[in-house]
């Protein structure tokens, strides 16, 4: 599988270069980007760092492991793995942040003072584990959004615009989905589909589109009656074109804000799934799940929970504040006039 993620990384980099170039070419988007940078510098840096870490953790190849490490020798290892060397950079068991002796027993550590956030029960470095969680979180959020947004917009906008039978159908579907507890549905879907990144994303997507769909439908219902839609009809514009040119751009700001809430909601939902034992391997949710028992120990082992929570919090907060600013900027009605 590692060549797939390598390919995705290349595509992502090429895609972002293309996006950056088109943004630079259009005055509106260039100004929006500058405005966003002006307003949310810190949050953008945080998300940038997370994305960078995720990319480093996605480029992998086989080989280059240390002698005698049989498992690692035949598994693809990412750039992060190669930088940290987790097979070697570990202790026997728990150690506190920056400690020089083991948490239980007091034997001297192999790397005294080197584990910034200590080690977990198997002696693995907590910073390394938290960094590995970045990729999982971004993958869950972004990939599921890619599933959710097209479905929700397609259903919501067509239901709102055409009404009647289509609306009845979509509304029925939404009501049915909303009436089943989503956690129950999620668990059932994952049981059927199996565990794995793709499966969990699909399960989250199937249960997660209702909210955005409802918003898109309601907003379309309102915009359908807008004078400029009537004017477009009087100009002979077709329904498809009215949807693409007049409806979608006018709900774009809602999509952006919902995307951000969705993104963070999904990252948090994965935590819950991990808590139930059906989450993704290496996620922050799993770290928190494992930290459950550690909290009841005396003296308390807090660094696992703290590391995962702080990373989670930083990502969620940064994405939310960026989305908030983006909504203001993308909507010309609330946009401040330049100069």
């Amino acid at each position, binding site marked *: 599988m590692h060549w797939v993620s390598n390919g995705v990384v290349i595509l992502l980099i090429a895609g972002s270069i293309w996006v950056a170039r088109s943004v630079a070419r259009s005055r509106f988007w260039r100004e929006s980007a500058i405005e966003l940078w002006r307003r949310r510098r810190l949050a953008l840096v945080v998300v940038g760092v997370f994305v960078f870490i995720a990319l480093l953790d996605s480029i992998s190849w086989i080989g280059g492991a240390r002698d005698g490490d049989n498992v690692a020798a035949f598994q693809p290892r990412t750039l992060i793995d190669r930088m940290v060397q987790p097979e070697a950079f570990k202790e026997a068991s728990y150690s506190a942040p920056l400690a020089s002796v083991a948490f239980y027993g007091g034997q001297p550590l192999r790397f005294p003072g080197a584990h910034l956030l200590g080690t977990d029960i198997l002696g693995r470095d907590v910073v390394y584990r938290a960094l590995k969680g970045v990729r999982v979180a971004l993958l869950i959020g972004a990939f599921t959004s890619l599933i959710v947004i097209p479905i929700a917009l397609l259903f919501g906008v067509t239901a709102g615009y055409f009404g009647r039978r289509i609306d009845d159908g979509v509304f029925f579907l939404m009501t049915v989905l909303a009436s089943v507890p989503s956690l129950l549905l999620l668990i059932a879907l994952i049981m059927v589909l199996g565990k794995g990144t793709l499966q969990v994303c699909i399960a989250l997507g199937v249960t997660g589109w209702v909210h955005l769909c409802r918003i898109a439908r309601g907003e379309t219902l309102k915009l359908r009656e*807008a*004078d*400029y839609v*009537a*004017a*477009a*009809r*009087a*100009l*002979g*514009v*077709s329904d498809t*074109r009215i949807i693409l*040119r*007049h409806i979608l*751009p*006018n709900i*774009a700001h809602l999509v952006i804000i919902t995307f951000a809430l969705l993104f963070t909601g999904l990252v948090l939902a994965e935590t819950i799934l991990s808590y139930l034992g059906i989450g993704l391997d290496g996620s922050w949710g799993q770290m928190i799940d494992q930290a459950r028992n550690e909290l009841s120990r005396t003296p308390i082992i807090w660094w696992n929970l703290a590391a995962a929570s702080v990373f989670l919090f930083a990502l969620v907060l940064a994405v939310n504040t960026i989305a908030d600013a983006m909504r203001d900027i993308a*909507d*010309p*009605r609330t946009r401040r006039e330049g100069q």
Partner: protein
Amino acid sequence: MSAPLLVVDQLAISFPAEAGRVRVVDRVGLSIAPGETLALVGESGCGKSITALAIMRLVPRPGRIETPSRISFDGRDLLSLPVTEMRSLRGGKIGMIFQEPMTSLNPVTTVGSQVLEAIVLHTKVSAGEARRRVIELFEMVGIPDPAMRVGAYPHQLSGGLKQRVMIAMAMAMRPRLLICDEPTTALDATIRAQILELIRNLAATTGTAVLIITHDFGVVNAVADRVAVMYAGQIVEEGTREELLGRPRHPYTQGLLRSIPRPEARGRRLEEIKGAVPRPGQWPAGCRFHTRCPVAFTGCYTEEPVCTRVSPTQAAWCHLVAEEARP
């Protein structure tokens, strides 16, 4: 006089109500010759806007155009035209501008690209050519600094400028017929005069026929060649501007004209037409105006009036006029 460009005949539009479908417009007939400006006048709710939408075949659901109706444009029957052809007619041969310039433009795209849409929708032109045409159109409708304004968003323009943009959009394909639904109602008095002047000039220079819908006799006086007066979903009188404003025959038209404030009547109480427009579906029997008519007599309460010609161009649907015209 040349053959009429637009003929509306026996137009009936119905909407569902508690007790079956109600005709909000009934037996409406209109005709407009090329280059002519017809004003359709009436109170709010008399069915004049829906008549305009019917010509574009844009009557909103659940409204329906009933069977005896006939609308022909340039010799073609609009009501039986395929959807795609009708769509190319809208914005192509028939342009329309609306009452609310404030909300009739999409707030998230530039006004230039919206006018551009009107052009690229109906012709195959290069992007640069289309852009040049937009600037030309902006110049034509009197938007100052057109090259700069094409990149403006609607909220950056005043109401008058927005209405000019709407006119540019409607005129983009040089339509044969321009329908204006209360084009100046939302504008203030000085801008109103400018916009009317613009519409009149455009019609004169391009030979476009104009159907202007209004409740304002100032507008009628400023632009119309001919006038049709509507009451409760029906035409009650039609004629040239001079005839209607000078010698109105229908009591309703007379009442409307008397209720316009005028300088010589200063200090006196303004006349009004007593009562209110009956609600659609609760039209009175006989002449629909008899409940408010000051000169109604027996026949008015039971029989629908028929068209009475009082001159080659003027006609009224009124029992009294018919009575007087009888030799």
